[in-house]
């Protein structure tokens, strides 16, 4: 009798097991039959970004993986660079009192009168977006905030995306991981 009972239990177990197996299979098939991305990474859409400064503070890394990238093609090489200089600056020098960047991560280099090249030192850049805001408001918008993928750990849910007020973060295919604007015209 015990044997019978055990057999019955074994039979039920087997039935349920097959049921679960089929269930997992159905879910797997359902998901696999969708358009899948082989890999996705987080990126900022500069058109949506409002440079609120949360990228600098919300990232799980101690120094944010979001950096300011410079699209040189778009740059006007202005002497009076609204991304480099604080507003109302009278003297166009590299003095600390004139620099907009809180960590002095933008390097200004003389090219040709009256043009200057601006280079971002990524080790110093904290992704606060102050320069991006300045450049976008009065300049060409050649400075843009982007997730620097060498640094990003690609969290399942990006902590900055959660805090972003303009929903500018989204997952993009790893094959085209940057969303810089004005970069197509090579």
């Amino acid at each position, binding site marked *: 009798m015990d044997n019978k009972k055990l057999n019955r239990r074994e039979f039920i177990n087997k039935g349920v097991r097959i049921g679960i197996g089929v269930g997992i299979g159905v879910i797997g098939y359902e998901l696999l039959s969708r358009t899948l991305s082989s890999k996705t990474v987080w990126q900022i859409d500069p*058109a949506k970004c*409002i440079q609120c400064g949360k990228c600098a503070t919300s990232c799980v890394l*101690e*120094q944010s993986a979001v950096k300011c990238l410079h699209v040189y093609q778009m740059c006007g090489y202005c002497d009076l660079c*609204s991304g480099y200089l*604080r*507003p*109302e*600056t*009278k*003297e166009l020098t590299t*003095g*600390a*009192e004139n620099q907009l960047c*809180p*960590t*002095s991560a933008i390097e200004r280099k003389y090219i040709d009168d009256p043009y200057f090249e601006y280079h971002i030192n990524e080790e110093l850049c*904290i992704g*606060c977006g102050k320069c991006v805001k300045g450049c976008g*408001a*009065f300049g060409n918008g050649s400075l843009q905030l982007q997730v620097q993928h060498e640094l990003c750990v690609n969290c399942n849910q990006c902590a900055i995306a959660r805090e972003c007020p303009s929903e500018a973060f989204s997952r993009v295919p790893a094959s085209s991981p940057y969303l810089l604007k004005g970069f197509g015209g090579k």
Partner: protein
Amino acid sequence: MFKKFDLKNFGTDQLWNRIALVSGIFALLVCVLLIGNYIQVKKADPINMKVINSLVERLHKDPSDVKLREEIRTLDLLSRKAYFTSKWQIRTGGYFVLAAIALMVISLQIISYRKTIVPQLSPENDDNTMAYRNKTRVFIVTGGSLILATALIFAILATNELKEKFAVQEINEETPIENNSDLITQAADSLVLEIIDTTGTSNITIKHTVASAFTNNDSVNEKSAASSKDNFPTFRGPGGNGIAKQKNIPISWDGSTGDNIRWKTAIPLPGYNSPIIWGNKIFVTGANTAKREVYCINRNTGAMIWTVVVENIPNSPGQAPKVIAETGHAAPTAATDGIGVYAIFSNGDIIGLDMDGKKLWAENLGVPGNHYGHSSSLMIFKDLVIVQYDQKTSPKLMALSTKTGKTVWSTNRDVKISWASPVIVNTGKRTEIILAAEPFVASYNPADGKELWKIDCISGEVGPSVAYANGMVFSVNDYSKLAAIKIGADQPTVLWENTDYLSDIPSPVATDKYLILSTSYGLTVCYDAVTGEKYWEKEFGNNVYASPIIAEGKVYLMDKTGIMHIFKADKEYVSLGEPKLGEPSVCTPAFTNGFIYLRGDKNLYSIGK
């Protein structure tokens, strides 16, 4: 492999215990230090120090203060050093803690690893399965019902009304917004005054009924009136009368340094029309001989939201008419009612677009016979676009449906070509469209286009539109005269006139007490609106093409070089500021609360913080 390196004999338990203890205490200490460091950094925020920002502000006021500059530089360097040092400290400290804890765990694991397993039997062998199960059940039932009861109480108290609220929000947005609801409100007030003025106290009942009729209308449009406060839907504001209702308009800025400039955006094609605003969208137009475009710009960021190329319009001429450079192909300002935006160009093309730039309708009204170029701006009355088409052959006033572009009514006018724009005002009794062109100033019923009155008092190539305030219409033209016309009775009468200063481009603007008249050669004069007594005159030195606008009792007058003359609309001339845009401008400003929008030769500016 493990046999060769036998953990069992590697150090004594006591040694490992001590290692664990020491590393544990070490980790704890570093942890405390790290927390301290963290709090310090959070508190001071060295990369965004208020002290530095305020010092920099002080330096901007006094750029020659070398000592202050040095101070800022030192402080900046220090704070940056502090920031990166603390980052380094936190990182290094973190590794220390990790290493110490790992060491502690390893030593404790080694101890337990080589501990021989000594199974211990529990002393009792009672089968207490049943007891435990009963206990579990009791706890689940009591705990569960406690939680459920609390949740239930709060659930009963909870109010869920977001969905309804959202639905209400949507309905509010869907209600057709009457852009003259402000006028109606205003009218209700002035009407009351008017009736008291003209009929004395015996007619209180009438006052009541009429006023309540307006109040009813008001309550329906309460929401939309509140939202249209932000708007600047036509040339020279609602109704085109040069009065802006907006508040907190800035009076200082500087285009060359960017001071107080929120954004500036280049407008691709030239045009001397002024910006108009609805909600978060600004509309301007631009055109050259080949191309005509309508632009929609984000009011907050200056980003171009859309651009519509006006093309493929039936009956549109292949070639743009000849115009002079000072008029251009896009002189008339567009108009919007929050549902659509309507624009007209030098070749007679008129287009209606919805707020997203989708074409609603478009047609050609016939190339206007106009030797300088068509420049009358569009106006809106309810669901009609009002077009003043005072051209060489068959001058007329037209009203097109905002929805379809079909002509609802058209009234022929026996006048010469004019460049003025219509003004729509509520005189208390009714709403009127007032136009000026040689030889008369005339008024029309906006509902059907019937002429209400006219008075011969103007001649020449009329450029300025009229001004209206408190039952008085003011018309002016160069080589003609300035006339103050009292309306309200069956036949309007000229109360006073003057020929000292005459304008051929800027329109006058009036309040109940004062009339402000600017001339294109840069002289501004202020009269008593009722008596015509001159209070003051002021020579600005530069030419003026833009029309003055009054906002919060301040007159905003832009001269051709881009200097905005701001002064009080008052008995005395009191200048409130002469900020420079840094770019020539001939366009009349537009306003929203706290902001002013200026169109220069190339760029559109938003000013304010």
